[in-house]
C-alpha cells in the first residue's frame, strides 16, 4: 500500500484505483492498493505519491510570489484570469512559492472564493468605490504600490483591453520589463521566467527573459493557457489591502460605459469551432458555416479575409489580429492557412481542413484534410450529421 493523491493533471472529479477504491478531488493523500489502475494513473501523471521527506524540505517559501491581476467588470471575472491562475499555480509550484491574485473592486461578492477555487493561495483584495470600474490611473497606483511592498517575482495580466492598458503603465512606473502576448511561460534552471511570444506576425517565435528587474511581467491572450478544474474545497487567504485614493489619482474620467448589443462570439471557450474564409466566395455561402456550427453546437469562426469581406463581424475573427482559440475540434473551411491565422488556432485538439486547393497551407497542420468544393462538401457533411 502506498499513499497517493490526485494531481492537477487529472481533469475529472474522481478516479477509480481498482478493488473498489476511488479517489476524489480534495481527498488529499489516501491509501491506495497496488493495482493496474494505479500504475496507469501514475504513468498518466494523474496521481503522485506521498514522500514525507520531500514534503518536509519543500515547505513553501514566503514572498517572491507569482501573481495574477484579476480584472473584473461589474463583479464578473473573465475566464482568462482563471486560465492565468492555473499557470500561476504551475509556476509557483516550480519555484516553491505561493500563487496570488490581485483583485480591485467596489465590493468583493464571491470573487475571492472563486479565485481560490481556481488555484490562488492568496487573494490581495482592495475594495473602494473608486475601484468600481477600471481606471488606468487608479489601478496603476494601487498595484504599483502593492508590488513595491510585497515584491512578487512574477506578475501576469490578461492581454485584454484592460490588461494591455494597465500592464505597460505599471512596468514603466516600477521600472521593469513586460512581454506582450506570451504563448508559453516556463521557469528555467536559474529560476528565471522564460517568456515565449510570437513576433513578426507569428512568423517567428522569440524567447524573452527579464533577468535584472523584478517582478518579471507578462500579458497572455485569452484562450492560450489551460484553465485548471475548479476545486471548491481549496482554501486560501484573503488579504485586505488599504488603499488611499482620491479623485486626482484617476487622471481620466469614465463618463459612460456602453454595452453594444453585439452578440459577442465566445470563441475562447468553445469546444467546437467551424470557421470560414475567403474560399467561401459569398456571404450566402458563409451561411453554410453557420448552419454546420449550429448543428454541432459550436461557434462560428472566420479568417481575416472573411471579416474584411463583411460576411461576419470582427469578434468572430481567429488569428494574430483576432482571437486565440483551443477548441477540441476546429473545422477550417476555405481558409488558406496563412501564418497569421494559424497562430490563433494551431493549438486546437483536432484540425479538419476543407479546401479546393490541395496545396493550401492549412493542410500542413490539419489532422484531416478534404480537398473539394466547399459548397458541396459542407452541405454533404450537414446531411451526414443530421442522419
Amino acid at each position: 500500500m502506498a499513499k497517493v493523491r490526485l494531481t492537477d493533471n487529472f481533469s475529472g472529479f474522481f478516479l477509480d484505483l481498482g478493488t473498489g477504491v476511488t479517489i476524489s478531488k480534495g481527498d488529499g493523500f489516501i491509501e491506495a492498493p497496488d493495482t493496474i489502475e494505479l500504475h496507469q494513473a501514475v504513468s498518466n501523471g494523474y496521481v503522485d505519491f506521498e514522500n514525507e521527506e520531500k514534503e518536509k524540505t519543500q515547505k513553501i517559501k514566503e514572498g517572491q510570489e507569482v501573481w495574477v491581476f484579476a480584472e473584473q467588470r461589474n463583479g464578473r471575472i473573465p475566464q482568462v484570469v482563471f486560465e492565468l491562475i492555473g499557470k500561476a499555480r504551475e509556476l509557483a509550484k516550480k519555484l516553491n512559492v505561493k500563487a496570488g491574485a490581485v483583485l480591485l473592486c467596489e465590493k468583493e461578492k464571491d470573487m475571492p472564493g472563486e479565485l481560490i477555487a481556481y488555484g490562488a493561495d492568496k487573494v490581495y483584495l482592495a475594495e473602494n468605490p473608486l475601484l468600481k470600474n477600471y481606471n488606468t490611473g487608479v489601478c496603476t497606483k494601487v498595484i504599483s504600490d502593492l508590488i513595491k511592498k510585497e515584491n512578487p517575482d512574477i506578475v501576469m495580466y490578461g492581454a485584454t483591453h484592460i490588461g494591455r492598458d494597465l500592464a505597460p503603465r505599471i512596468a514603466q512606473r516600477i521600472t521593469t520589463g513586460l512581454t506582450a502576448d506570451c504563448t508559453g511561460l516556463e521557469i528555467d534552471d536559474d529560476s528565471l521566467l522564460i517568456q515565449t511570444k510570437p513576433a513578426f506576425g507569428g512568423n517567428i517565435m522569440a524567447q524573452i527573459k527579464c533577468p535584472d528587474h523584478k517582478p518579471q511581467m507578462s500579458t497572455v491572450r485569452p484562450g492560450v493557457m489551460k484553465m485548471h478544474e475548479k476545486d471548491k474545497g481549496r482554501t486560501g487567504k484573503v488579504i485586505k489591502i488599504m488603499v488611499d485614493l482620491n479623485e486626482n489619482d484617476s487622471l481620466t474620467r469614465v463618463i459612460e460605459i456602453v454595452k453594444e448589443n453585439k452578440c459577442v462570439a465566445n470563441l475562447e471557450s468553445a469546444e467546437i469551432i467551424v470557421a470560414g474564409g475567403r474560399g467561401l466566395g459569398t456571404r450566402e455561402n458563409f451561411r453554410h458555416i453557420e448552419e454546420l456550427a449550429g448543428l454541432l453546437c459550436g461557434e462560428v469562426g472566420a479568417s481575416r479575409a472573411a471579416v474584411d469581406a463583411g460576411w461576419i463581424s470582427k469578434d468572430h475573427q481567429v488569428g494574430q489580429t483576432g482571437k486565440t482559440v483551443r477548441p477540441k475540434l476546429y473545422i477550417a473551411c476555405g481558409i488558406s492557412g496563412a501564418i497569421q491565422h494559424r497562430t490563433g488556432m494551431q493549438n486546437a485538439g483536432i484540425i479538419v481542413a476543407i479546401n479546393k486547393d490541395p496545396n493550401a497551407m492549412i493542410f500542413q497542420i490539419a489532422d484531416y484534410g478534404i480537398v473539394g468544393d466547399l459548397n458541396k462538401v459542407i452541405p454533404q457533411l450537414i446531411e451526414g450529421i443530421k442522419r
Partner: protein
Amino acid sequence: MNIVVCVKQVPNTNEVKTDPKTGTLIREGVPVIINPEDKVAVEAALQLNGNVIVLSMGPPQAEEALREALAMGAHEAMLLCDVKFAGSDTWATANALAAAIKRLSYDLIICGRQAIDGDTAQVGPQLAESLALPQISYVQKIEINENKIIAHRELEDGYEIVEAKLPALITVTKELHKPRYASLHGINSAYEKEIKVLTAKDIGADEKTVGLKSSPTKVKKIFTPQGKSAGVKLEGDIKTVCQKLICILKEKEIIREF
C-alpha cells in the same frame, strides 16, 4: 494646438514568406511601411487641424516613413537616430521618445495602438507614464472640447466614453479613420521639408534608460515555430469522405449521435 504623432516603420508582415524547404523566414525583400495604425494616428492629427509633428525612432531609412507622413500633410518631422537607441525594448523606447517630447510644447500625443511587427501595444501607455500624462488607449472616436479630450475607448463588448484633460496621450485603432492618400502636391512639398535627425545627446536622453543594454527584457532565443505535421487527406467521392470524417469524429467522441 500642437499634436505629436509617434510613428514606427515596420516590415510588412503580411508579405513575409517562409522558405518551404527549411521553414525559416525569408527576410530579404520584405517591403517596409508605416505601421498601419500609426498612419491612422497621423490622419487623426490632421483632422484635428493642429500643428502636426511626427516623431519616429529608428535607423536612417525610417526617414522614408516620416517623409510619407509629411506627404499626408504633417508639418514637422523628427527622427531619433543613434546607435545608442538600437535594440531598445518598449520600456527604453518610451524613455527615448519621452526625452524628445519633453523638449517640445504639445497638447496631445497620438500613437497607433500597436505595431504589426511586435503587436505589443505597450509603447503608448509606457510613454504616457514617462510623461505623467493621462492616457486613453484603443480609441475609436475623438472629440476635443476646449482643454479636454473625450474619446470612445473600445472594449471587448462595447465601448466606454472617457474624458481627460489636455495634455494627454491616446492610442488609436483602425476603426477611427481611414488614412488619406498623399496628394501629388503633398508628395512634392514633403521633399522640401526638413526632417530633424536627433541623437541621444541632442535630446538629453539618459544613456542608462535607452538602448539594448538598459532594456529590462532580453531576447534569449529566436526560432521558427514548429507547426504540427500534416495529417491524413481523406480520399474518395464527396459522400464517402464526409462519411469517413463523421465516423472519425464520432469515434473520438468529438461529436455525438444526434
